[in-house]
């Protein structure tokens, strides 16, 4: 780290013996002794007052970047602004103060939220059923693959063990497939950034579980032959899994169900404007076509009784051949309230405009930057595009240097080094919530950095200069991994 680094002490360093944040009142019941066998003799936790802890974490929060501070074009993550009305709704006592073990008749409003969200998500992606259980995107992927496996097994089709993943897919797709015990075969892209159809067809045989496809893909490009791709997989008896992480580009315009997909997961924390980037929590609902509805994880909210006077009664139901629970209780309920709020705030027209503006913003940046940065698959993109962070006449400058330098302008760096099919990748996703003024400021910064790369590369190599922490030595951090203060050599 650079010499200007501000060092925030750790809580263990701020600790002072006997200091405490809470003084409990004297017990008004007899004390019960903890059995000797369960007691430990030392517990080296820091001892601090409440104000010590609050100041520590508040100072740390000032070192952080957030979408509420400035532009956050982290490709594939859809770091859009999250309207504060979502937070208001999630904090309503009827949502915030309920317990998951409460009887169903006492939480009908909460169940209605889940029911409406299920219905809206089904309509948005054109699928027959949805489960809100999965905790985040990759969890949704794993759930989707387990559903595909259960479907084949239920038909006695047990030799299928292969999942195809294009090289432009999200990096979690092969991991989710491998985790469910499947064999992963990577399919290359063609020179327009589409999946290579011939290579795909060559792998479509009777061992195929399915294809995991991200559409638009991680190049920000819509698969131009999507119907042929889906047909090839279906002809071989396989299923098509859609990674809906890039749904922001398609809202109200195209639906996975209409493209023939069998399973998709959605990222409420990306497309539907719930907070992420600071640990979430996320939410990755899985939606399926009619023939997979019975396999969904549960419970799912259904209308269990319809009364003309009192309206519907909602209940929690387990699908008939469910793969089981994938999450304790009902998934991340607070995230669902925020996502439903977002959907209702915008309405159908508004959601469509989200996609239109997201695509417009991405193409505006792409065209503004295409003469300065090489864009290998340079065609009309969807919500994001991928540029190369390198120039022949600036040897030694890498995507990482450009990204670190962007921090000096107050911007979060784009996604680096992914997808792997672009050299020194800079994956840029502006989202719909950014104004032209913000986009223009970003373009100006990117152009200045491109000039600096030729004229003064040192300023890039040493960046960032204006942040509380300078350039972190990622290599040293990875090679000499120290995860706790107690293992730090200086502590002895």
């Amino acid at each position, binding site marked *: 780290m650079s010499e200007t680094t501000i060092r925030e002490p750790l809580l263990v360093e701020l600790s002072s013996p006997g200091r405490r944040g809470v003084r409990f009142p004297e017990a008004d019941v007899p004390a019960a002794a903890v059995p000797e066998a369960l007691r430990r003799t030392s517990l080296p936790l820091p001892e601090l007052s409440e104000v010590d802890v609050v100041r520590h974490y508040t100072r740390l929060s000032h070192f952080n970047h957030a979408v509420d501070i400035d532009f956050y074009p982290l490709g594939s993550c859809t770091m859009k602004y999250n309207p504060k009305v979502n937070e208001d709704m999630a904090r309503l006592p009827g949502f915030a103060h309920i317990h998951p073990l409460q009887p169903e008749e006492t939480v009908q409003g909460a169940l209605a939220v889940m029911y409406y969200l299920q219905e809206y998500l089904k309509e948005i992606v054109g699928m027959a059923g949805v489960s809100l259980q999965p905790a985040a995107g990759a969890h949704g992927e794993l759930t989707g693959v387990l559903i595909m496996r259960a479907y084949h097994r239920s038909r006695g089709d047990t030799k299928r063990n292969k999942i195809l993943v294009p090289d432009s897919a999200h990096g979690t797709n092969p991991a989710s497939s491998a985790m469910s015990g499947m064999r992963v075969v990577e399919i290359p892209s063609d020179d327009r950034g589409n999946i290579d159809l011939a290579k795909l067809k060559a792998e479509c045989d009777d061992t195929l579980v399915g294809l995991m496809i991200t559409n638009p893909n991680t190049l920000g490009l819509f698969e131009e032959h999507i119907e042929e791709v889906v047909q090839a997989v279906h002809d071989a008896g396989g299923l098509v899994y859609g990674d809906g992480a890039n749904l922001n580009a398609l809202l109200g315009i195209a639906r996975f169900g209409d493209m023939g997909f069998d399973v998709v997961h959605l990222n409420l924390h990306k497309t539907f404007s719930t907070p992420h980037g600071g640990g979430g929590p996320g939410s990755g609902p899985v939606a399926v076509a009619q023939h997979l509805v019975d396999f969904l994880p549960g419970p799912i909210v259904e209308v269990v009784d319809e009364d003309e006077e009192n309206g519907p009664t909602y209940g929690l139901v387990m699908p008939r051949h469910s793969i089981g629970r994938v999450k304790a209780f009902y998934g991340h309920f607070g995230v669902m309230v925020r996502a439903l709020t977002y959907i209702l705030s915008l309405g159908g027209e508004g959601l469509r405009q989200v996609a239109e503006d997201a695509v417009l913003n991405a193409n505006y940046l792409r065209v503004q930057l295409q003469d300065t940065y090489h864009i290998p698959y340079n065609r009309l993109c969807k919500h994001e595009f991928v540029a190369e962070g390198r120039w022949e006449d600036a040897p030694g400058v890498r995507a990482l240097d450009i990204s670190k330098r962007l921090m000096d302008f107050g911007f979060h760096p784009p996604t680096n*080094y992914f997808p792997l099919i672009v050299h020194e990748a800079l994956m840029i996703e502006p989202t719909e919530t950014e104004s032209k003024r913000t986009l223009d400021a970003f373009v100006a910064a990117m152009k200045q950095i491109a000039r600096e790369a030729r004229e003064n590369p040192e300023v890039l190599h040493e960046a960032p200069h204006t942040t509380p922490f300078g350039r972190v030595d*990622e290599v040293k951090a*990875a*090679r000499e991994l120290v995860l706790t203060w107690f293992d730090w050599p200086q502590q002895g």
Partner: protein
Amino acid sequence: MSWKVAPHLKYTKNDEWINPEDGTVGITDYAQAQLSDVVYVEITVSEGDEVQQGDIVATVESVKAAADVYAPVSGTVVAINEDLADTPEVVNSDPYGEAWMVRLQIADPAELDGLMDADAYQKYCEEREA
């Protein structure tokens, strides 16, 4: 970008090299430059294992990416380089020497004929840079 190609080795499309003389296997200078600083190497096979051409024998992790290393030919693993666990940086500094990963007793020398020689591999790298 520049990279070195060793004349006496054979190469795969996945950027592994194999020494036809002693059966040692590693990743190429081009591959290590693409990966950037390597922070972790795990050899995933043990001495005595039989591997088929294309089986995973190691995984390499850098600050940028993780990559599998595949057996260039079929054979029996006769040695693994245990030092790499503590010194992954030699993959960057000496990819064709100290950073050998496994040594294979080559089952079928004819499989070597399907690999690229140094000239062909050099061209293959140049094409990808274009």
